[in-house]
């Protein structure tokens, strides 16, 4: 290991209030949740930070609470807990699919949704599902809490809307109307452990022969996870018997800005994004 544990300080608060108070005075201490992302660059000696705010023990942030109209997911809830939750299974199946597509079991039992969002990888598996369900995130500090749409959370490659004294504490996912159809697919080199070449999540509500509502979002095709608003506009309200497939494929190209990297090429991603859109529409109608 090239990381230097001997050079690293860790502060472990016992309560969320204690964590926020510490964060207010020490905004440069990096929050550490389940560690499944951070420990990799740390061990490789690639992480500049040597001071960590260890949030792992904060029970306030581990719960999942379902209400009439939404599910509240504590920032430290694991993928495994998310995938096992009965209301999430029944009403938010894309979140289950995303959680099960993340790493493998040993990652799913330890990695947290909040940590994943703050880590900010555009290739992360849950963001497309959260975008499609129009989730909101709670940002808390000693100044109080505020909710913002998850769609406004990522402001650029690995950059986010959090103020230096804030922590992401909760993810609220509104339950979509029943009768909708859900789609999630991740394309990687292997079913487990792969990081996505790209992924697409969709939710649609067919009604009276038309696509009354449709939401689409993709991962790994832009600096941040993106909602495919152009493609949605082309498809919304269209008759199910004659969906404008090629127009939607073309519009989708304006929603994404993929690059060539070690996992795939921009050309492949553009082509397969269109293929996934067609597959999603076939599944959604």
């Amino acid at each position, binding site marked *: *290991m090239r*990381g230097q544990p001997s050079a690293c300080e860790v502060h472990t608060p016992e309560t969320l209030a204690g964590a926020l108070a510490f964060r207010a005075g020490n905004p440069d201490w990096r929050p550490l949740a389940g560690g*499944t992302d951070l420990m990799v660059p740390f061990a490789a000696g690639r992480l500049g930070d040597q001071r*960590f705010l260890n949030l792992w023990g904060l029970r306030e942030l581990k719960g999942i609470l379902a209400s009439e109209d939404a599910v509240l997911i504590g920032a430290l809830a694991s993928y*495994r807990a998310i995938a096992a939750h009965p209301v999430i299974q029944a009403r938010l199946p894309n979140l289950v699919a995303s959680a099960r597509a993340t790493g493998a079991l040993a990652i799913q039992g330890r990695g947290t949704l909040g940590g994943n969002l703050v880590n900010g990888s555009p290739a992360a598996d849950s963001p497309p599902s959260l975008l499609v369900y129009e989730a909101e995130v709670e940002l808390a500090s000693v100044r109080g809490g505020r909710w913002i749409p998850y769609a406004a959370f990522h402001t650029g490659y690995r950059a986010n809307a959090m103020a230096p004294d804030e922590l992401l504490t909760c993810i609220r996912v509104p339950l979509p109307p029943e009768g909708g159809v859900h789609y999630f697919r991740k394309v990687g080199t292997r079913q487990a452990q792969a990081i996505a070449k790209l992924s697409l999540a969709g939710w649609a509500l067919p009604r009276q022969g038309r696509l009354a509502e449709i939401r689409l979002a993709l991962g790994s095709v832009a600096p941040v996870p993106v909602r495919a608003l152009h493609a949605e506009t082309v498809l919304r309200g269209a008759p199910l018997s004659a969906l404008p497939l090629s127009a939607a494929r073309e519009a989708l190209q304006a929603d994404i800005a993929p690059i060539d990297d070690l996992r795939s090429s921009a050309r492949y991603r553009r082509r397969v994004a269109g293929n996934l859109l067609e597959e999603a529409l076939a599944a959604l109608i």
Partner: protein
Amino acid sequence: MAEKILLWMTVNGEARSAEVFPMARLLDVIREDWGLTGTKEGCGEGECGACSVILDGVLVNACLIPAVQAQGGELLTVEGLARKGELDPLQEAFLHHGGAQCGFCTPGMLMAGTHLLAQGGPGDEAEARAGLAGNLCRCTGYNRIVDAVLAARREHP
């Protein structure tokens, strides 16, 4: 220079402690401080599963756990499977079905398999493969490993 912490855990049923830096990897504490070298380091980045252990009932990669987050935990490593020199049924099944070749992935496979069995699985081959999907075998002896885990479930339901 950071200050060391006194890490104390229940390891394979016995109380153990070590003075370690808070960001020391649990993997290094297990191997270097406690001398339990059954747990292997493969990739060191959570991809290969060679360092799989069970921490508080959850299968984890020991290379990704900072010591400070293991404080007070209950840990099961591959050394904890055999009792009084007797292999446990999953270890016996690995032997019987040829589930070990070079042996490097075997401790991690055994821990992932133990976790599967403890959860009441695997119900079928697909579940076995999904449960072992985070553990890589570079000898590619997967079929026999899957057979061993399924046999352990059949023979010790």
